[in-house]
C-alpha cells in the first residue's frame, strides 16, 4: 500500500530486525500473481531453512525467494472455465492481500494515477507461502482445512485468511478448526471480521484463538464528482478511473426504464437489479439507481454510467465496470429531483480524485459488528485496521472491477473490505514476531489489542462492537509492557466451559485433558478484553481472574486506572502489580458489577508503569 503504513507510523525508516526475512506468512486466498513487482526477490536472503513446504510450479507459475511456496486446493465440485488449476491468481484478491502483508517496495505504484507512491507491505522482507483455496465460485471448507493442514506442517509463522461465512459452532467451522491447530503449533491466524455491515451480531471468525480484524479508514479517500445539467456538483464515493470523453450524457432514473418485456416493473428497475433495466432505454445514458451495487447490471445494459444513492456505505470505496459514483441520501435525492424537474436531464461523472479523510479513523459501514453470536462473553471483532480504499498489487488476469466484461487490466488496484484490513494486522503480528520469535499467538494478539487506541465515539457509535480493542498501533504493539498470555490448556478450559465434554476434548488435544470446574461461560479465558451480556436494569456482578506476563522493564510497578460510567462498579485487586523480572507472571481479580439502562455501556482499565499503558476494553451489553 502507498499510504496506510505511514498513517499507522510504520514508516519506511522504522526499526526492523534481520529476522523479518525469516518470517513466513501463509496466505489462504485466491492465489497470487507471481510476476507482480511487489513479489520480486532481489536482495532477499536464501529461503529460511525451517521452510518445509513446496511450490506447485508449472510452465506458467514459478516461485522465488519471495513467494517461497504455492499450492492450490480443490477437492469438491467442478471448476469454472475461468479457473485454472494452478496457484496463479485469476481474481486479483489474493495478490492484493499478499502484497498488503508482505509486498516489497515498488515505487510509483498507482491506479491510473490515483494513490501514487511507493507501495509496500507491512513486512517487506518477509516470505509468502500461497495456499489457493478460493475460486470463482467461492472457498470450500474442504479446501480451507486442507490448506491449514499443509501450512501448519510447512512451517509458516502467521496465517492470513481474508475469508469467511456465517459464524458457526467452533468444531463445525473450518477456519476455527484450522486456526485452533495452528495455535497449538504456535502460529497465529489473522482473519477478516466480515463485510456484513452494522447489523448487530454479524461478525465472523469469532473463535478466541483467532485475531478477527474489522476495517476502518485512514487519512486518504477518493471522491468522484458528478455534475448535473443544472450546473450543480456533488461529491460521491467510488474509484472511477474513466475520463469522461463526451462530457454530458443523458440522465435517466432506473425506476423509469424497467425491462417490461422481461417482466420487470419500476419496483425492480429503480434498484437497477439484474436484467431489470431496458437496455434500449438506457444505452449511452447515465442511470440513477436507488441502491449501491457492483454496477454489473447497469454495465451489461450498455449504460454510459451510473449514479447510486443509498442510506449506507458512503465508505465502500471500490471500482465499478463503468463510470460510477455513489451519493448519500441527501445528494441522491437532489439528483432525483433534478431528473424530475427538467425534460432533458444530463450529467457528467468525473474521474476520481484523492482527498484527505479528516474524520479518520472510523470503522467502515460495511465492517461486521459484534456481539459474538457463538460466545457472547468473548468480545469480537478484536481490533481494527485500514480497509477502505487500499491500493495494492493486482492480477492482470482479473478485470479491474472484478466484473466479467470489464476489459481494463491493471497491476495495482484500489479495494475496500475487511479482506484488506486483515493483512494489515497479519503484517503487524509478523513484525512483532520478527522481534520476539518465541512469543505465543496469544501474546502477540494481546500486544496488538492492549496497545490499540479506541476510536472517537461520535464517528463510531457502535464502539467496541465495531473496533474491538481499538485501532492497531504497530509501534506501540512492539513494546506492550505486559501481555495476557494463553496456551492450549487455557483454550481447552474455555471449550469445557462452552459445554464440550472430556471425550471430545481428548480427541482434539490428543492428550488426557479433563474438564475441570470453570468460572463463567468463557472459562475465565485469559484475554485482554471483556464482554458481559446482561439484561437491562438487572443488577449483575461478575468476577474474573486475569494473568499478565511482564515483557517490558525487568523491575517495574504498574498501577491500574479504571474508566467507567457511574452505572458500573469495577474493582481490581490488587491495584498495583510489582514485577522483579522479565517473564514474571502475576494475577489479579476483576469484579464488574452494576446495571445498564441502554443497549451498551463501555468501560476500560489500564495498567500503567509510566512507560507502558496496557489497556483492556470492557463492554456490558443488552443481550435480550
Amino acid at each position: 500500500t502507498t499510504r496506510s503504513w505511514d498513517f499507522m507510523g510504520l514508516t519506511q525508516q522504522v526499526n526492523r530486525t534481520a529476522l523479518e526475512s525469516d518470517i513466513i506468512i501463509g496466505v489462504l486466498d485466491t492465489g497470487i500473481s507471481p510476476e507482480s513487482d511487489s513479489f520480486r526477490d532481489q536482495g532477499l536472503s536464501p529461503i529460511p531453512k525451517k521452510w518445509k513446504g513446496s511450490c506447485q510450479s508449472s510452465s506458467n507459475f514459478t516461485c522465488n525467494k519471495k513467494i517461497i511456496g504455492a499450492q492450490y486446493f480443490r477437492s469438491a465440485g467442478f471448476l469454472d472455465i475461468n479457473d485454472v488449476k494452478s496457484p496463479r491468481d485469476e481474481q486479483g484478491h489474493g495478490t492484493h492481500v499478499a502484497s498488503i502483508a508482505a509486498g516489497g517496495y515498488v515505487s510509483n505504484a498507482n491506479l491510473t494515477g490515483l494513490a501514487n507512491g511507493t507501495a509496500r507491505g507491512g513486512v517487506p522482507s518477509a516470505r509468502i507461502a500461497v495456499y489457493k483455496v478460493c475460486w470463482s465460485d467461492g472457498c470450500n471448507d474442504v479446501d480451507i482445512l486442507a490448506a491449514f493442514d499443509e501450512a501448519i506442517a510447512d512451517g509458516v509463522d502467521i496465517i492470513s485468511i481474508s475469508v469467511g461465512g456465517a459464524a458457526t459452532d467452533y468444531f463445525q467451522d473450518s477456519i476455527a478448526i484450522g486456526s485452533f491447530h495452528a495455535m497449538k503449533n504456535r502460529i497465529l491466524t489473522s482473519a477478516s471480521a466480515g463485510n456484513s455491515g452494522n447489523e448487530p451480531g454479524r461478525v465472523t471468525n469469532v473463535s478466541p484463538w483467532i485475531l478477527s480484524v474489522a476495517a476502518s479508514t485512514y487519512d486518504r479517500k477518493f471522491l468522484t464528482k458528478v455534475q448535473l445539467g443544472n450546473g450543480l456538483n456533488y461529491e460521491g464515493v467510488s474509484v472511477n478511473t474513466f475520463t469522461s470523453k463526451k462530457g454530458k450524457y443523458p440522465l435517466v432514473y432506473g425506476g423509469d426504464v424497467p425491462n417490461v418485456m422481461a417482466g420487470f416493473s419500476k419496483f425492480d428497475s429503480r434498484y437497477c437489479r439484474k436484467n431489470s433495466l431496458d437496455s434500449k432505454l438506457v444505452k449511452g445514458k447515465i442511470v440513477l439507481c436507488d441502491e449501491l451495487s457492483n454496477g454489473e447490471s447497469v454495465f451489461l445494459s450498455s449504460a454510459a454510467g451510473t449514479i447510486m444513492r443509498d442510506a449506507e456505505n458512503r465508505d465502500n470505496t471500490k471500482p465499478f465496470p463503468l463510470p460510477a459514483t455513489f451519493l448519500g441520501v441527501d445528494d441522491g435525492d437532489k439528483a432525483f429531483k433534478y431528473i424530475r424537474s427538467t425534460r432533458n436531464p444530463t450529467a457528467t461523472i468525473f474521474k476520481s480524485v484523492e482527498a484527505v479523510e479528516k474524520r479518520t479513523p472510523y470503522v467502515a459501514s460495511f465492517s461486521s459488528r459484534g456481539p459474538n453470536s457463538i460466545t457472547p462473553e468473548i468480545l469480537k471483532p478484536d481490533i481494527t485496521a485500514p480497509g477502505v480504499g487500499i491500493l495494492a498489487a493486482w492480477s492482470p488476469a482479473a478485470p479491474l472491477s472484478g466484473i466479467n466484461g470489464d476489459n481494463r487490466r491493471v497491476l495495482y488496484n484500489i479495494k475496500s473490505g475487511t479482506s484488506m484490513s486483515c493483512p494489515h494486522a497479519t503484517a503487524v503480528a509478523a513484525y512483532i514476531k520478527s522481534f520476539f520469535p518465541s512469543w505465543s499467538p496469544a501474546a502477540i494478539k494481546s500486544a496488538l489489542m492492549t496497545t490499540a487506541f479506541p476510536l472517537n465515539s461520535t464517528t463510531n457509535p457502535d464502539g467496541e462492537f465495531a473496533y474491538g480493542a481499538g485501532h492497531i498501533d504497530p509501534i506501540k504493539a512492539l513494546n506492550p509492557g505486559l501481555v495476557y498470555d494463553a496456551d492450549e490448556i487455557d483454550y481447552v478450559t474455555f471449550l469445557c466451559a462452552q459445554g464440550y465434554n472430556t471425550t471430545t476434548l481428548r480427541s482434539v488435544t490428543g492428550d488426557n485433558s479433563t474438564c475441570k470446574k470453570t468460572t463463567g461461560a468463557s472459562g475465565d479465558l485469559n484475554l485482554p478484553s471483556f464482554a458481559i451480556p446482561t439484561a437491562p436494569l438487572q443488577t449483575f456482578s461478575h468476577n474474573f481472574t486475569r494473568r499478565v506476563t511482564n515483557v517490558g522493564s525487568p523491575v517495574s510497578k504498574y498501577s491500574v486506572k479504571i474508566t467507567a460510567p457511574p452505572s458500573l462498579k469495577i474493582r481490581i485487586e490488587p491495584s498495583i502489580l510489582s514485577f522483579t523480572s522479565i517473564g514474571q507472571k502475576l494475577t489479579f481479580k476483576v469484579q464488574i458489577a452494576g446495571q445498564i439502562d441502554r443497549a451498551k455501556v463501555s468501560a476500560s482499565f489500564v495498567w500503567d508503569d509510566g512507560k507502558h499503558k496496557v489497556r483492556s476494553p470492557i463492554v456490558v451489553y443488552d443481550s435480550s
Partner: protein
Amino acid sequence: SHHGNTHKTYIVYMGDPLKVDHASASSLHRTMLHGVIGSKASTSLLYSYRKSFNGFAAKLTEEEKHRVAKLEGVVSVFPNRKLQVH
C-alpha cells in the same frame, strides 16, 4: 431427494493428528469409511487431513453422515460450506 440418499460433501473432524505416518492415516480413514459405506469408501473419500490434525472429507448421504458421527474418535461431522472472500 426425499429418500435422503443424496450425496453431499461432509468433513469428518477427528482432532489431533494420529501418531502414524501419513499413508497409514489415509488408510485408516478409508477403513473407517469402509465400515460404514462398504466398497464405495475409496470413491467417497475426497481428502485426508493427516499432517497437522486428523480428519477427512467424504461424499456421504445424510444417513451415512449420522453413522460416521457415532464412530469412536469423531469430534464432529459437518457439511462443506462455500465461504467468500471479504
